[in-house]
């Protein structure tokens, strides 16, 4: 069973921390298809966060096709995440780019800032990613799920 650790000072939304930690567990092989995620009750009891936050994280993971909720049984892993394409051409392109950036005089923070801003630009408008923007309807739905 994975255990979530919530960093209250990180500035990352709590539900995203759960999403990220689940993905990390999938990448590291700590979770495999068929494994069960902790129930909302279990997460809430150990982390003292809001139950709706857990449900929101699980919905996001479900939307990405990583887990599925089985009614009355719990939430289960559907597929794993490959070990971030360790030897892929994308990685070597990025490595080549990073060494050019360094050669041109950028330091580590410059590169990180540049990379973050490109990430922001390329992934900002992911379709359907506005899970936290949709407001009241979303929340009512959650209340139904809780019972």
């Amino acid at each position, binding site marked *: 069973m994975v255990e979530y650790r919530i960093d209250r000072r990180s500035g990352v939304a*709590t539900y995203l921390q759960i999403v990220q930690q689940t993905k990390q567990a999938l990448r590291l092989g700590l979770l495999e298809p068929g494994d069960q995620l902790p129930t909302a009750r279990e997460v809430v*009891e150990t982390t*003292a966060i809001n*139950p709706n936050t857990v449900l929101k994280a699980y919905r996001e993971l479900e939307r990405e096709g990583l887990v599925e909720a089985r009614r009355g049984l719990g939430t289960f892993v559907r597929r794993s995440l490959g070990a971030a394409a360790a030897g892929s051409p994308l990685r070597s392109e990025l490595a080549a780019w990073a060494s050019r950036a360094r050669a041109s005089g950028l330091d580590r923070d410059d590169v990180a800032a540049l990379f973050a801003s490109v990430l922001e630009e390329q992934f900002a408008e992911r379709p359907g990613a506005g899970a936290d923007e949709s*407001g*009241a309807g979303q*929340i009512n739905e959650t209340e139904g799920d*809780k019972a």
Partner: protein
Amino acid sequence: MTDTAIEAAALGKRFGGPSRSGGWALRDCSFRLPAASICAVVGPNGAGKSTLLAHAAGLLEPTEGTVTVLGAHPSATRERIAYVAQDKPLYPQLTVAETLRLGLELNPGRWDASLAERIVTDGDLDPRARIRALSGGQRTRVALALALGKRPELLLLDEPMADLDPLARHQLMGTLLAEAAEQGTTVVMSSHILGELAHACDFLLLVGEGRIRLGGAIDDLVAAHRLVTGRGPLTDALAPHTVIESRATGRGLTALIRPAGPVAPGWETAEPSLEDILLAHLRSPDAPALLTPSASVRSGSSDMSAAVTG
């Protein structure tokens, strides 16, 4: 069952004698709290938080306006509500075990003895210890055991965690939220420290000078505000929006706004944290109040679910 836990309409309470707001502890409070919310009631000392909770508990009669709890007058729903006052009143001469026994006797048919006992045992309390011999934090634990053991539909907690150590706070909050998640309990907790509540709650009421200044689902409240940073005169760029607070940042400025349409190009916008929003409102007492639709009092009493037939 109603989908509204608490509804206040123009609620006002005036205590005798002059005070800084003319004797009014609450004035013109209107809001709706949806059932199954975990709600934080925050605000500075003396803002009216405790008075608001005491009205919901049916312990105070409004001077004007009304408050409805679980669809009825608070005095008619008392057995479905649990209320833990700030000073955690218990009988000092009783032992812990006798106090839990009292919970059983006073709540026939509702009492969850195993839950109440578990909360007490988690704190390593001796059942034979007298209440008067307990520390403040231990008394809080017994008071919460009594309140949760009642299996209330609405749990009102006035400054519940103030005298608990960090470990006990975390653990009791976990138990409380797990029970709430399972039972669909509505929980209302007041505090003047937001930190301890921000992650536990999904609904917020900010009280200031006896009024509701912000009310709504926390996600909606955050979505209604933006932090903008840029250069140039404030008035031109931000004119269409409601500016809650603005501060100089280098050569430009950072402002918390409630956007009314797109923000002018050249201004960087970011999602504020709940803390950003609360601090900005506390520093700007004249900022207009905001109730999101989920917190607004509905006109009439028609049931929404009736519209979703076929």
